[in-house]
């Protein structure tokens, strides 16, 4: 197993631990190494390859008095590493929340067995079938849609993580991460669209692109079809904007929107959560783009509930958020909501992840009801049970624009499609902005509806990375019910004429 970690890294971490012993402090050492390639295709030809390598050590020092200090270096020399240790040691401070985060990770780790990682083979980047697959995909997209400007970027990285602590615990892992992005520029209107997908695998040959390519193809087909179709929408009285803090609103939102809001909630400072039916869990999911089984505090990352019906694990949440800010860490967030009692609806296994990207036009799936028709049935069902108020019930699908300020917790979201419930059906209306403060999200969840399937892995839909809207969450992934149902009991306040 030692081949995974270079002898240099082993000797440097050993040096830190023994220096920590000398000074009578407890040290946590986290080393993240990566070796990667970025391939770029433009207008049908491969244009360039870029190599990159990186090494980063993060040292946490804990003193017997309860002080905690941290420092990091990206230079793998004995001098740099020792200087980094002393910087961490000299900058300790008492932080009960941080200490609680360490305790929490320690507790969780002790319940799980160590990681198993295969021995590495000699790495030959160009042997991966991904290169030819992605190139074929690039050319296919270019010729099918006669695009004036298409750029496809494939990023492949081998990442190695090694953690060691003064209590003698060590963990090591190595895996491959692949990420592909198609960027379409429409020069006549000056608008850019991006589509992305990715995954992780223990070895490079296991990282295959079939699933990515079909996902990207679907995203692009959907984009192309909605671009061509001019929606006939009704104008949007009575609200020029939906503010969930001010209006009584019932919203059915698709997974893409839920994921954007959830990520904003995750990044926003919030000490407590009022009562919620939501259950939010953080996990390192093998195969997901976000896979990263080690926390930079020097512990294994094991499944942990952040939000439950009984409350919030604040220490766990802050430990994850702190790691997100360091950029070399990613994680999978999984949201569970009580299943809306809609078992009689045709939410069978054909409503799977691929349908998420499909157009609303039901004629494209003549044999199956589309997720939209399920949403419409769900609305009628809620209506029959007297739970729905016309004109205040909206269905939101897709994200056209999303902006959030994690500092204030306020966000603005314009969905791609917006429907209002009128006369027993969902009527398309002109998409308007939905705004509000993110604190209202968790207590407003009522339930969710998801496809049912025999395979537990397919039960919840996953969404693509959110790095474009949340720069701190590069490669993070989320799963949530296909549609979430939220109820906001806002207070209308007329502030006109301020």
């Amino acid at each position, binding site marked *: 197993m030692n081949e995974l970690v270079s002898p240099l890294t082993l000797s440097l971490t050993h040096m830190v631990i023994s220096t920590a012993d000398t000074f009578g402090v407890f040290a946590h050492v986290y080393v993240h190494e990566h070796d990667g390639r970025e391939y770029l295709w433009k207008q049908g030809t491969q244009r360039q390859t870029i190599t990159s390598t990186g090494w980063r050590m993060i040292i946490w020092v804990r003193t017997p008095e309860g002080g905690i200090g941290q420092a990091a270096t990206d230079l793998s020399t004995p001098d740099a590493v020792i200087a980094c240790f002393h910087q961490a040691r000299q900058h300790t401070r008492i932080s009960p929340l941080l200490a609680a985060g360490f305790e929490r990770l320690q507790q969780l780790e002790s319940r799980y067995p160590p990681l198993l990682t295969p021995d590495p083979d000699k790495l030959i980047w160009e042997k991966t079938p991904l290169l030819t697959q992605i190139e074929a995909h690039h050319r296919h997209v270019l010729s099918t849609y006669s695009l004036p400007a298409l*750029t496809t970027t494939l990023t492949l990285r081998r990442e190695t993580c090694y953690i060691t602590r003064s209590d003698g615990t060590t963990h090591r892992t190595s895996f491959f991460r692949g990420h592909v992005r198609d960027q379409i520029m429409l020069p006549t209107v000056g608008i850019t669209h991006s589509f992305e997908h990715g995954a992780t695998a223990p070895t490079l040959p296991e990282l295959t692109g079939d699933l990515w390519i079909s996902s990207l193809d679907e995203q692009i087909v959907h984009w192309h079809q909605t671009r061509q179709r001019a929606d006939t929408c009704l104008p949007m009285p009575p609200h020029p904007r939906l503010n969930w803090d001010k209006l009584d609103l019932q919203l059915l939102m698709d997974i893409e929107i839920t994921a954007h809001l959830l990520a904003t909630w995750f990044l926003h400072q919030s000490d407590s959560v009022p009562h919620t039916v939501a259950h939010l869990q953080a996990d390192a999911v093998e195969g997901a783009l976000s896979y990263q089984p080690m926390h930079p505090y020097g512990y294994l990352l094991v499944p942990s509930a952040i939000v439950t019906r009984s409350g919030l694990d604040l220490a766990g949440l802050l430990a994850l958020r702190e790691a997100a800010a360091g950029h070399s860490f990613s994680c999978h967030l999984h949201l569970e909501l009580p299943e809306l009692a809609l078992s009689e609806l045709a939410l069978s296994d054909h409503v799977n992840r691929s349908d998420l990207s499909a157009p609303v036009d039901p004629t494209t799936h003549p044999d199956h009801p589309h997720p939209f028709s399920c949403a419409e049935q769900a609305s009628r069902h809620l209506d029959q049970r007297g739970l729905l108020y016309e004109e205040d019930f909206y269905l939101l699908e897709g994200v056209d*624009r999303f902006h959030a300020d994690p500092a204030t917790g306020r966000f603005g979201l314009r969905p791609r499609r917006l429907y209002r419930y009128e006369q027993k059906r969902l009527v398309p209306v002109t998409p308007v902005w939905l705004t509000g403060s993110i604190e209202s999200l968790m207590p407003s969840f009522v339930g969710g509806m998801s496809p049912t399937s025999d395979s537990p892995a397919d039960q919840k839909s996953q969404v693509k990375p959110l790095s474009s809207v949340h720069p701190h969450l590069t490669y993070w992934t989320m799963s949530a019910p296909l549609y979430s149902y939220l109820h906001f009991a806002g207070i209308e306040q007329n502030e006109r004429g301020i």
Partner: protein
Amino acid sequence: MKMEHTDFHHQLTDAVEQNRRISKLAAFRYELNESQTMDSAPSGDIAGREQAIGGMLTLIWQDGSISLHQLTRELLHADSLPLGEWREQRFLHDGYRYFVKPSKAPLPVVPLFDPLIAQAVYRQEMPDLPDGFDATLTVHKRTVTHSKGLQLEDEGTAIRLTPKDLSFPFGHRGRLFPSEREMTYLETEWQWFSRFPLSVSDQLDQVTQETVLLFSPEALGTLIHSGLGVHLTNPASLSLAHSFLEQCATKTSLTLRYDPHVPWALGSQRFSAEGNRTAAVTLLSPVRVEKQVEKPAFLAPHDAFEHKLSPGPSYSQEALRLAAGTVHHFREWLRLKPEVLYIPTLALPESYAPWAEESAWVPEAFLFKRGRPVCRGAFPLSFSLTSILCATEAELVSKIGWDRPGLALPARLLDSTS
């Protein structure tokens, strides 16, 4: 700042000049950005001192192929160059093989370096700050070099003062440490502002016709960059930018320049990533009679990298500057206006069409009535870049803490509020 790349440069020169037969290398060039930052309020629990390195190495091999490698500290300090591994990554490309000839003429003189900031960072001693503000001080060094003799270096500093109180919208950005007078101004402004209790409104877009919108330099930079700057740096949409500028020239009363030579401005730099002298370009100026409008050249050099990994690209959105006959001083100007809606920042898609109706998200705006703040709130702002750059009643406003002017115009001139 200590030179981190001296050995690395020697090794590369050696591989190109002494060991050509073994290395198979013909030439190299690289751009390196080194920076050291000190923060008065470290974010999270990271100790308040960060060193960063970024850059890109281009190798030209004897068979005419090239290879690209991201520069990291690990690579700069390696005992030997991984030439074998690099050789495996060669590819053919027409660009990249062009070298800037070292010029005998001196580079333009643009002061960017404040010794006070540099000393504070090196000694790790934060100077006295105005009350109520946190500071981030940075020293950065850029090197552009190639094996045909070019060696350019530049050192600069930057400072950012951010209010500790999130509800106060004014900070300070620049390359010079603020003077006593400026610090007193910032402190006094903060104390004055905090005397007024602000209500929160979500209907700031429904202001009266006479309300004046004031865009901060940062918000204005985002507007012009995403609607015009992006197109001026992309060969695919350059003609879109040209036709927009042609359309605007007869209507505007403003001058828009891309000027990287303004002393102490954040967008200033003396040479590009390839080693060319940077040049100022007038993008838009008032033309009263119909005449051929000059078409500005593509802002990024033709062999610019096709990726975004390389930090410090030649184009900087902060070098986009508006100018007009008169520039008003913020305090006096604000006092004379019955109602001003100040927009410190806004969010937009990566790029948008300059003449189309677009919607920007304003996370926090501040409404002033007769010079006093009354409320704040978030709202979506509908506009078109044409309506902003061609607004007949546009005024430029300067303020202590801004390194370029902001823009003010009546709200009724934007499509959304008319």
